[in-house]
């Protein structure tokens, strides 16, 4: 929870935080501004004074050197002239020139006012008067520092004012900006807290709404599953009824039309035989009888094929495994294609599943016979992960599944059959790479 002022406002303390860190920087900048230029001026001016003092002292010492050389011991007694000569160097800025002997004692008249000299605000510089390698005396020059101090203080005041202004700007502007930012943030925080309150309230209702919606969705999903299950059951029943109907039709065809046609064929064959026994009979009639017999055979074959298509009685007769193997054998006999069959189902399957599986195999083998030009076909039927897996693979010509599309009604029929039972079908094929069809049918449909 953020800290709060007594007024209840959020206490951010950004301004004081910034101020605390900005203050030393401001002071350093102010100090640097205040002192840097005056200090630089002071140091340079002091150096200049030193140079001036040194130069003056050296010049005076040089002037006196010849006199000292001529009077090695007695030069200092010529004090009035010495003082008068070096006095010429006491120009503006050079307060005094004092000449001392080798003991450092000022010569007469050179520094009679020691107290006044001691009070001088001056920088003292010196140069020795050397004669034959020995120091005979020294010239001291007092270079006034009053102007230096005065100018340095004036510069310090000026730059101090500048440093003050800079400090105020450097400290005040960011602090002012931070104050505004802090006010804005405080306002935003207030708004955010209002939003959080509203959001909390909304969350409270939203959770209830979500729970309600979730319950509704669960119910809807359950209803959907139930309906799907019903649909599957209905589909299965429809398939079974359809298959039963088709088997009935097939049986009817087989039992009535088939028997009738068989009797017709026997009679037509007898007629043909009788006509053949009679010499001189009409050859046209014999030929017609034979043609009729052929037409009957074709019709019987068509009926047999239709019966086989309508109702695979073989399922009822021998079961799914034998029916599939027989279908494979039929393909081998008809087309010389090697068919390898693996069947591994140890449970009893629902009739709709068996019919759909058989129809898938039947349709696939029909396609192999008609289009694949394959040499080998492998059939696999097994129970895996609670589903019946049916796989038909051939090494035939294959086809472009994208290009074929809905034109292959057989493939569309397979897909429709599988999806009616809630299963999945994968058809993988490419030109020259054979075809692989995998079908998964839920065995829950047994329940």
């Amino acid at each position, binding site marked *: 929870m953020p800290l709060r002022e007594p007024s209840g406002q959020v206490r951010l303390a950004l301004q004081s935080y910034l101020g605390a860190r900005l203050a030393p920087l401001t002071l350093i900048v102010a100090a640097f501004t205040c*002192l840097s230029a005056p200090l630089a001026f002071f140091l340079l001016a002091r150096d200049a004074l030193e140079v001036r003092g040194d130069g003056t002292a050296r010049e005076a010492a040089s002037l006196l050197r010849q006199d000292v050389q001529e*009077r090695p011991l*007695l*030069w200092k*007694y*010529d004090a009035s*002239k010495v003082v008068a000569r070096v006095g010429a160097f006491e120009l503006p800025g050079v307060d005094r020139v*004092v000449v001392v002997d080798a003991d450092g004692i000022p010569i007469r008249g050179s520094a009679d006012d020691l107290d006044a000299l001691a009070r001088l605000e001056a920088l003292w510089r010196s140069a020795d008067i050397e004669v034959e390698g020995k120091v005979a005396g020294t010239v001291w020059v007092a270079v006034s*520092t009053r102007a230096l101090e005065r100018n340095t203080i004036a510069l310090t005041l000026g730059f101090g004012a500048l440093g003050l202004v800079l400090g105020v700007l450097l400290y005040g502007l960011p602090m002012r900006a931070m104050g505004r930012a802090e006010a804005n943030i405080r306002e935003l925080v207030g708004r955010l807290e209002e939003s959080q309150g509203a959001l909390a309230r909304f969350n409270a209702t939203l959770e209830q709404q979500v729970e309600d919606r979730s319950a509704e969705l669960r119910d809807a999903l359950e209803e959907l599953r139930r309906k799907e299950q019903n649909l599957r059951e209905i589909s299965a029943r429809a398939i079974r009824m359809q298959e039963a109907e088709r088997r009935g039709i097939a049986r009817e065809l087989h039992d009535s039309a088939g028997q009738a046609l068989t009797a017709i064929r026997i009679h037509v064959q007898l007629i043909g035989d009788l006509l053949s026994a009679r010499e001189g009979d009409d050859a046209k009639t014999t030929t017609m009888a034979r043609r009729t017999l052929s037409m009957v055979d074709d019709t019987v074959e068509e009926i047999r094929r239709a019966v086989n298509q309508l109702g695979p009685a073989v399922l009822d007769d021998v079961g799914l495994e034998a029916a599939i193997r027989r279908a494979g054998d039929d393909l081998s006999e008809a087309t010389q294609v090697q068919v390898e069959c693996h069947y591994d189902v140890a449970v009893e399957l629902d009739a709709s599943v068996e019919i759909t599986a058989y129809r898938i195999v039947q349709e696939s083998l029909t396609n192999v016979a008609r289009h694949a030009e394959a040499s080998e076909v492998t059939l696999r039927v097994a129970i895996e992960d609670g589903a019946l897996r049916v796989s038909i693979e051939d090494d035939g010509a294959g086809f472009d599944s994208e290009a074929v599309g809905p034109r292959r009604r057989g493939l569309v029929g397979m897909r429709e059959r599988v999806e009616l039972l809630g299963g999945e079908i994968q058809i993988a094929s490419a030109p020259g790479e054979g075809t692989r069809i995998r079908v998964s049918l839920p065995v829950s449909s047994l329940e």
Partner: protein
Amino acid sequence: MDDTPQRHWKPWIAGIAVFVVVVAWAVLEVRGVGEDSRPAFLTTALEPSGPNRPDDARLHIAGSGSCVPLTRMLAGSVMQRLDLSPEVHASIGSGGGIRALRDGAIELAIVSRALRDEEIDAGLVYTPFARVPVIVAAGLDVPDRAVTYDELSALFDGRRTQWSDGTKVVVLLREAGDSSHRVVEEVVPEFADITASVRAQGAFRVLYHDGAMQVALANTPGAVGLHGNGVDPSLAGFRALAVEGVEPTGGNVESGAYPFVKELGFVTIGPPQGEAKAFIDYVLSPQGRALLRVRGAVPPAPEGD
């Protein structure tokens, strides 16, 4: 982010401390400039390391540059006649000679001025040995041969800037208190103010010793200056102008016709003694007097005349 007030004050305190330290250092640095450069004589009572006298037994003579040429000439003569080997030092001025004498640095001072009362009271004894003319000296290139008092004043106060042939006048001054200037000032009272004024203005070159004046007069075209050390001008490379029509000869000095005359003398502590007395006696002897006259100086009248 620790925003406690105590923590916020720490940078302030540190910054202010730095600021104060820097300002204090700067102020001390400015105020103390030159403090450490003061010479020892301002801070310590210094004592001479020892006697300032040359470490030999010779008679040392020093003082006014006006006396040096004649004294050296006399010293050379006395070394040949007596068992004395006096050394005459370069000019240190009359006052310098007296101070050196009182300090014990020399035994005999030579002066071109009379003793002051305090010097007499201190027991110093003055012995005059010659009078010499203070000449108005001009370069050999100067066409003029004589000056009046007015012309002399005009030359030295800068009113007259050309010699009679139009060449530029170059005035050479001696320092204030010089004995030659003092002699002229006694005769031409306004001369003191004139020279003081032009010295203060720095209008003319100032020379501090007779030797330097002698060289400058000989080497500076159009030069004019006062000179009085008994040296023959013609031998030194300049000429002496007549003053108010009177030539600066020994005769005119002795007769009193020539107005600018300087008296030279010896100073001893108490009556002359020892080698100093012997040297003074020689200078005042007939031989010494004769030598002085040869150099154009006028010896004092013999005692008893």
